[in-house]
């Protein structure tokens, strides 16, 4: 069964905070949920399906359904890291198509900035995690795992630090118009290269921000979507794919987006050539480059040339990306960037992006993400959305 056209995104809300020392994580989830429901013109009592991932406190949906006071008949706590919420959109459509719910609420929130999280520190793990026994002593953090992918990509394809820097430059061009963005200053390729090296070959400005915040989405069936006074943004394709070390056959030059993207494009019946706006999870610049290749916007190894010279800047290049400023400049709530990818795609399709970055007559958009660790084990998720 295809989910093509079976569900619409009718509510999308990005919490405006980027620093929330005086709020709880559950509170940020709730404030995001309320924002998305108000955006949709629906109420809490309309929600009968709830979706969250590992950022939700306690026993995920059990804690949050209780906190929010929801009365739901379907829950899903699929957790594949920061791309979870992109997968949740597809799972919500599946549940709606199967009759398990009518109005699905997806929330994310977290306070990594207040809690002092850093991409240079190894994440907590335990002896029961099967890979931890063989990896923990070596100091795999977030930054150096992604950096090894960049190093290998440079080695195999001649990708340069300047080309990676263009991804940050494009994000900064968009973030300057976003009053909520953490980093609103325009930066140049030279600025990126002059920023301190965090983990070779990635500079500080190749890395996303650490921000508190949250976001939420409301997904519903076509009849309900058409009864609401919001533009009709429907899901027409989706895919997801985990990728790991494959028993020691490690290849850091491609991601699961190779498969999640192909599945999503096939289901949607469109190709990358049809797309003028893409939300691409930008935990690091290299994350964007590898996903663009894997989605088919250019051939494997051509990503450096594709992103250079402003090709990702709205109104300038071939493919506008992350017009909110993305994780690189705007927001990376809970260290998980998937939900903001979907939110900005919805803004573009509604024509509600900032006028300076709005893609004219944007009718198709892709939102894609990599959750977990690109350098070891990650989950790719891709959705293709269409304005009806």
């Amino acid at each position, binding site marked *: 069964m295809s989910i093509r056209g079976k569900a619409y995104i009718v509510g999308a809300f990005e919490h405006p905070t980027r620093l929330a020392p005086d709020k709880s994580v559950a509170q940020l989830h709730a404030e995001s949920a309320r924002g998305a429901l108000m955006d949709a013109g629906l109420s809490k009592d309309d929600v009968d399906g709830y979706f969250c991932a590992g950022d939700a406190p306690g026993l995920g949906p059990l804690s949050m359904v209780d906190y929010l006071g929801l009365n739901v008949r379907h829950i899903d706590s699929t957790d594949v890291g920061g791309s979870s919420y992109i997968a949740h959109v597809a799972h919500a459509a599946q549940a709606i198509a199967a009759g398990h719910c009518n109005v699905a609420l997806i929330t994310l929130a977290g306070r990594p900035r207040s809690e002092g999280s*850093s*991409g*240079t*520190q190894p994440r907590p*793990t*335990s*002896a*029961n*995690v*099967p*890979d*931890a*026994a*063989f*990896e*923990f*002593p*070596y*100091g*795999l*953090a977030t*930054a*150096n*795992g992604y*950096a*090894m*992918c960049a*190093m*290998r990509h440079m*080695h195999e394809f001649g990708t340069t630090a300047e080309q990676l820097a263009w991804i940050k430059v494009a994000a900064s061009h968009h973030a300057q118009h976003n009053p909520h963005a953490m980093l609103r200053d325009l930066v140049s390729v030279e600025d990126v290269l002059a920023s*301190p*090296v*965090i*983990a*070779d*070959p*990635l500079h*500080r400005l190749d890395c996303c921000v650490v921000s508190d915040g949250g976001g939420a989405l409301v997904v519903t069936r076509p009849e309900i979507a058409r009864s609401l006074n919001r533009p009709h943004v429907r899901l027409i394709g989706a895919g997801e794919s985990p990728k790991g*070390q*494959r*028993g*020691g*056959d*490690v290849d*850091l030059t491609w991601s699961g987006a190779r498969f999640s993207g192909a599945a999503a494009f096939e289901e949607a019946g469109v190709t990358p050539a049809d797309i003028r706006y893409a939300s691409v999870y930008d935990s690091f610049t290299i994350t964007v480059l590898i996903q663009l290749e894997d989605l088919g916007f250019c051939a494997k190894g051509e990503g450096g040339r594709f992103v250079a010279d402003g090709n990702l800047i709205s109104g300038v290049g071939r493919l506008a990306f992350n017009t909110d400023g993305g994780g690189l400049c705007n927001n990376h709530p809970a260290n998980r960037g998937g939900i903001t990818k979907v939110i900005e795609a919805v803004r573009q399709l509604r024509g509600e992006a900032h006028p300076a970055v709005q893609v004219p007559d944007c009718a198709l958009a892709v939102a894609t993400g990599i959750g977990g660790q690109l350098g*070891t084990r990650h989950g790719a998720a891709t959705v293709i959305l269409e304005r009806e």
Partner: protein
Amino acid sequence: MSKEQKAPSVRAIPDPLINPESKRWWDAAGEQRLLIGACRDCGKHHFYPRALCPHCMSDRTDWIQAGGAGVIYSYSVMRRGAPAPYAIAYVTLDEGVTVLTNLVDCDFDALAIGQRVRVVFRPSAGGAQVPVFTPA
């Protein structure tokens, strides 16, 4: 720079997290032997070693000693956020599997993908012998 001068020059290796399945790998490491997985049914090597083969799900896996030589597949030197810079790497062993590790006793600025390396063992904070690699 005074802060950097006071910092240790070599990163302390944390103690490994060991479970009943991986204990034999660490027991071998204590004898300065690096083990990889080998499957009697499909004949392929795998890493990390485990009870059931990740290629064919056979339970007839052996944990065999690797020669300890390989080439750098990729690496990154963590320059910030750690008390001392350190190099994380993937090394492709001559047996064909690629392992996550550290590169030690080397000039971090002279590392290169494709460089030959060999396994050495360095103590963790609590005294476990941890396999790492150094230029051959």
